[in-house]
């Protein structure tokens, strides 16, 4: 007969490649949340104050909260079309550990939705008058925090994938869970502004990231099985 069973690594790579390809072909799912992020950030100076002193104070919080809101929008596309066209069933029936396949989907999602946000953040930080010495910390905190958001959000998306309209319930479930990330992300930037070391907060976020990477895909996999049942 044809073909040997693939290694888990090959299945992981195939899933990662496929999701990146889909993202590349369905640019709207990626571009719109990104635009939303930039627009929300730009609204704050208009709504609060154009004075650079006040903007400096709120810059980290504004960027972080906008990241959380934008990630709610982008998360929705993570499993939706796969659920609707039946690809999710194929994923669940793979002989490979679901953990790695879900992880591949999460990584791909972060690469196209989280990473662009991280890359553009120094520009927005400049517009919000954040002193340049805090850029590094902001980018690092986002680099550690946005994957955690993708991983945790993935659980909530997986639980609600069978629902018709789920945009709001996703936010209701996920946003309260993002409080610790918000706290440590903004504290890291604040401490840099107060000329203290942000290393403590960043390493805490690193710990949270490693815990999320090792546990969240398990929960997402279980949630997908429940939703497809």
């Amino acid at each position, binding site marked *: 007969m044809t073909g040997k069973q693939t290694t888990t690594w090959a299945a992981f790579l195939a899933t990662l490649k496929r999701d990146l390809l889909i993202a590349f072909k369905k640019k709207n799912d990626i571009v719109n949340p990104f635009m939303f992020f930039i627009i929300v950030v730009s609204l704050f100076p208009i709504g609060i104050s154009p004075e650079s002193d006040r903007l400096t104070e709120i810059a980290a919080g504004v960027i972080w909260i906008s990241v959380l809101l934008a990630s709610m929008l982008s998360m929705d596309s993570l499993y939706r079309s796969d659920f609707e066209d039946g690809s999710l069933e194929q994923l669940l029936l793979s002989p490979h550990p679901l953990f790695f396949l879900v992880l591949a989907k999460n990584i791909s999602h972060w690469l196209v939705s989280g990473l662009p946000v991280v890359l553009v953040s120094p520009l927005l930080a400049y517009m919000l008058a954040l002193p340049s010495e805090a850029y590094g910390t902001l980018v690092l905190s986002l680099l550690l925090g946005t994957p955690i958001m993708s991983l*945790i959000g993935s*659980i*909530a998306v997986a*639980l*609600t994938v*069978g*629902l018709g309209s*789920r945009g709001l*319930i996703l936010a*209701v*479930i996920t*946003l*309260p*869970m993002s*409080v*610790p990330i918000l*706290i*440590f992300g903004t*504290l890291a930037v604040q401490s840099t502004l107060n000329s203290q070391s942000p290393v403590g907060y960043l390493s805490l976020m690193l710990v*949270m990231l490693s815990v999320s990477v090792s546990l969240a895909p398990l*929960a997402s996999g*279980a*949630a997908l099985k*429940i*939703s497809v*049942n």
Partner: protein
Amino acid sequence: MWVWFSKLGSPKWFYELSGKWLPWLIAAMVIFMAIGLVWGLLFLPPDYQQGFTSRILIVHVAVAGTSLAFFPLMFVAGTITLVWRMKLADMVAKNAAILGAWFSFVTLATGSLWGSVMWGTWWEWTDSRLVSMLFQLFLLLGVISLRSALEDSDTAAKACALLSIVGCINVVIIKYSVEWWNTLHQVSSPVNMDASSPNGPEFWIATLIMIVAVYLFLSVSLILSTRNEILERERKAQWVQDLVLKS
């Protein structure tokens, strides 16, 4: 065979057993509640710092302490639902989420009532316990709204079980991170947090009685609502129909 047994056997067993316990639990609840409320709210000597305000605190501390039990309870119930597929655990979890949301709300309400007298403000972000309770309330509302959104009861049971487990872990992380966040913003706080612990052994005894009373209240309401749930979900079972015909 075990799965079969636990799925069909347990609700009936629970219904009969809880029926025997209920009168005793209710009696104990009434006694403790009466002592706690009458003594605590009417006769307890006023605290030297806080005056009569400390009396609200008795209720607040008792309800707040009980509120912390809900997520661990739902964690255990969720694990049982996912691992052993026991229907009873899901019925308990469903009502625990709703009761938990009420308890969290009452904690916030009594807390801000007390705060309005003590701190001169109804809401104070610098009190980490209030803030983490607020987010516990949000998480519980998330579980409730997930259940109401899912139509298939089996899917809803498992999905809520999983969310409760994730939520329980999360609520612990939120609690510690909010406390941390709080200590860093303490400097700017206009409120003297040290004033929040009144002295005197009577206060603690009254609080203890109140805590027992509220835990009993929690058990009684959980058992009552679970019994209702059992009757509704098992309405086609023979023993429920016999029960209805008898009464």
